[in-house]
């Protein structure tokens, strides 16, 4: 047995089913060893997408996503994917090949100081210098990635270590790190304070972030909200915590969110910020949300609490555990006492009154109407992966989550995320329908992955909202630079029908809403990859 075999054994011990990656000389021993394993390897077409695909898989399976790339450019290419996962706290283990350990530091061919380069985007990183350290490093890496505040871990392994003989392989059963013991249980005294505040409150609201999904706390939070009739809004990463049409859900907050959700949050007298960072896009003026209300901030990462805003009640711990403990408390807030009922009536009125009215042009597809129609027609538990750009904002605003999932790159806003992430999501659960919705800009950032889908038979459906512009930037230039458009024109884009034909993929085009129903039906009919191009108004705005 050599180091590379040991790596594969570690992955098997962790129950890894897929490795996304791109080989090169420095990672060849690993890719040779994995041939003898049942772990499936997916040859992605550029390394960044290996991390995105692993991210999609992790988010649907709840397991750690794994990617393996070579040294130098392979490793540096994967950084954007790692940073994307880090911003959204997605658990990944990223293996990078490295040059011979004796040559490290001498700038040889395809050498890059990857552990140094990714330091601010990873939860932790390893540079393995002794073959016997492999099992312990992997055990720790998987543990670190998927506990506490989840995130990516990078393991850099020089080629000579991969080739070194392993005298005896033993995979540790437990992790014992003196420096890493994340808080899971919430402090009981703080939980009691939350109960007291809820009893005092007249207009409480829960703002659910991505941490709810990551902790597996969706059901317990939903049940809590229903039991006490507490309204819920969400951040972008929190979309799907409540079904979109749930009577207690009022939409996404933030500068691209629903007006009624923002108003609900502003007018509340008690805000439970749950698994959310209070970052600029969700809360543009963090100081304001503590002015007229009590803020309770629940997060597994103590550093997030008080980073952007100082809460009245800080509560560190895993969302699921905290809501289980909260559910076990007796909260004296029947409707007559706290009159949450009045509050909900007010919010329901806002929801109707403040609905955004759009005036779409008839000669184009209306992305808002199209996205709602698509979500109503897709399978109930289908997975909708939104890319970045105007398409993302429309998706956030008009996609209807029922029992499915809504995935997107929230923190980093990485264009090109949707297609590789959708592939990972599909591999995580082949029984579910997976649709990637992107713009023509973001599609072209990941269109090389059509080959991966074809090669590995990953039936992902792709919608391209085509407007021949980098729409989000164009919209910004419209408002801030008086329509002086600079470098946003996408002329020169390929004919998508011809392009997908080259990959033997089926193609549909929708030019206006006239045949939308039947086109979407045809698009969703079979479980095979297909691309649907929707021609949208180039001058359309999300606001």
């Amino acid at each position, binding site marked *: 047995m050599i180091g590379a075999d040991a790596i594969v054994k570690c992955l098997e011990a962790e129950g890894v089913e897929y490795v996304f990656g791109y080989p090169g000389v420095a990672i060849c021993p690993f890719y040779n060893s994995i041939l003898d394993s049942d772990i499936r390897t997916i040859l992605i077409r550029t390394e960044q997408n290996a991390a995105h695909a692993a991210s999609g898989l992790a988010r649907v399976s709840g397991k750690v996503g794994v990617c393996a790339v070579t040294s130098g450019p392979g490793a540096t290419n994967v950084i954007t994917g790692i940073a994307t996962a880090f911003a959204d706290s997605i658990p990944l283990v990223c293996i990078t090949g490295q040059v011979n350990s004796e040559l490290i530091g001498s700038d040889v061919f395809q050498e890059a100081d990857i552990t140094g380069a990714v330091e601010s985007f990873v939860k*932790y990183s390893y540079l393995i210098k002794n073959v016997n350290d492999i099992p312990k490093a992997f055990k720790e890496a998987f543990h*670190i990635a998927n506990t506490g505040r989840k995130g990516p871990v990078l393991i850099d392994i020089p080629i000579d270590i991969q080739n070194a003989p392993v005298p005896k392989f033993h995979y540790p059963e437990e992790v014992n790190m003196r420096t890493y013991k994340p808080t899971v249980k919430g402090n009981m005294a703080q939980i009691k304070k939350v109960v007291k505040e809820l009893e005092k409150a007249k207009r409480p609201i829960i703002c659910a972030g991505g941490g709810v999904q990551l902790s597996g706390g969706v059901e317990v939070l939903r049940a809590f909200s229903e039991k006490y009739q507490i309204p819920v809004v969400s951040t972008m990463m929190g979309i799907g915590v409540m079904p979109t049409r749930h009577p207690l859900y009022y939409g996404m907050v933030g500068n691209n969110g629903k007006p009624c959700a923002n108003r609900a949050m502003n007018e509340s007298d008690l805000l439970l910020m749950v698994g959310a960072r209070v970052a600029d896009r969700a809360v543009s003026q963090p100081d304001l949300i503590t002015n007229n209300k009590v803020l309770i901030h629940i997060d597994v990462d103590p550093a997030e609490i*008080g980073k952007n805003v100082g809460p009245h009640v800080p509560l560190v711990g895993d969302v699921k555990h905290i809501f289980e403990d909260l559910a076990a408390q007796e909260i004296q807030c029947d409707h007559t006492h706290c009159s949450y009922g009045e509050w909900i009536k007010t919010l329901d009125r806002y929801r109707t009154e403040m609905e955004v009215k759009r005036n779409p042009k008839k000669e184009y597809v209306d992305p808002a109407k199209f996205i709602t129609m698509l979500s109503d027609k897709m399978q109930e538990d289908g997975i909708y992966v939104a890319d970045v750009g105007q398409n993302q904002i429309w998706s956030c605003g008009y996609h209807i989550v029922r029992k499915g999932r809504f995935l997107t790159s929230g923190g980093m806003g990485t264009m090109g995320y949707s297609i590789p992430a959708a592939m990972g999501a599909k591999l995580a659960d082949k029984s579910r329908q997976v649709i990637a919705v992107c713009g023509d800009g973001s599609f072209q950032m990941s269109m090389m992955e059509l080959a991966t889908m074809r090669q590995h038979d990953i039936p992902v459906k792709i919608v391209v909202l085509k407007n021949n512009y980098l729409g989000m930037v164009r919209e910004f230039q419209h408002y801030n630079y008086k329509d002086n458009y600079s470098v946003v024109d996408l002329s020169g884009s390929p004919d998508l029908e011809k392009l997908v034909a080259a990959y033997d993929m089926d193609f549909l085009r929708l030019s206006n809403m006239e045949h939308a129903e039947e086109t979407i039906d045809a698009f969703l009919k079979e479980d095979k990859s297909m691309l649907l191009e929707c021609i949208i108004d180039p001058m359309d705005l999300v606001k």
Partner: protein
Amino acid sequence: MKRIYSVSVENRSGVLCKVAGLFSRRCFNIDSLAVGETDDPAVSCMTIVSSGDERTIEQIEKQLNKKLDVIKVKTFDENASISRELMLVKVKYNRGNRRDIMENCDIMKAQIVDMSKNTMIIQICDEPERIQLFLKMLQTISIVEVARTGTLALPKCKDAEN
């Protein structure tokens, strides 16, 4: 606001870089930094002096605690601690100012640790402010070079300590 952080870290290569990188990435100040092994060779102690508003001071501690190579972060006020810095100064001297220099050294409890015909090295170990003061006193004569450690600090002794 000034704050002293005494950070126990795993004594591994790259840890200093990670901790220093954290400060630069989040725009925290490092006023001074001193690193050395502790009684346990697997553990190093970093003494970092930083400054910022209350939120920054709290964030520094929390972010340090997040680093997986950090074992423990202790933080304390300047007043609640004993702090020392070591400085070596090489100066040019002549017949005219030799006595003055030696008097200054006496007042400040500094020692002359090396000498040649026209230069000498003075060593002083004291509180950071007094080091600064001594350096100011020497400025009237010709300083060749200066080497200074960062601040080292430990919280003051308390009776009930175990």
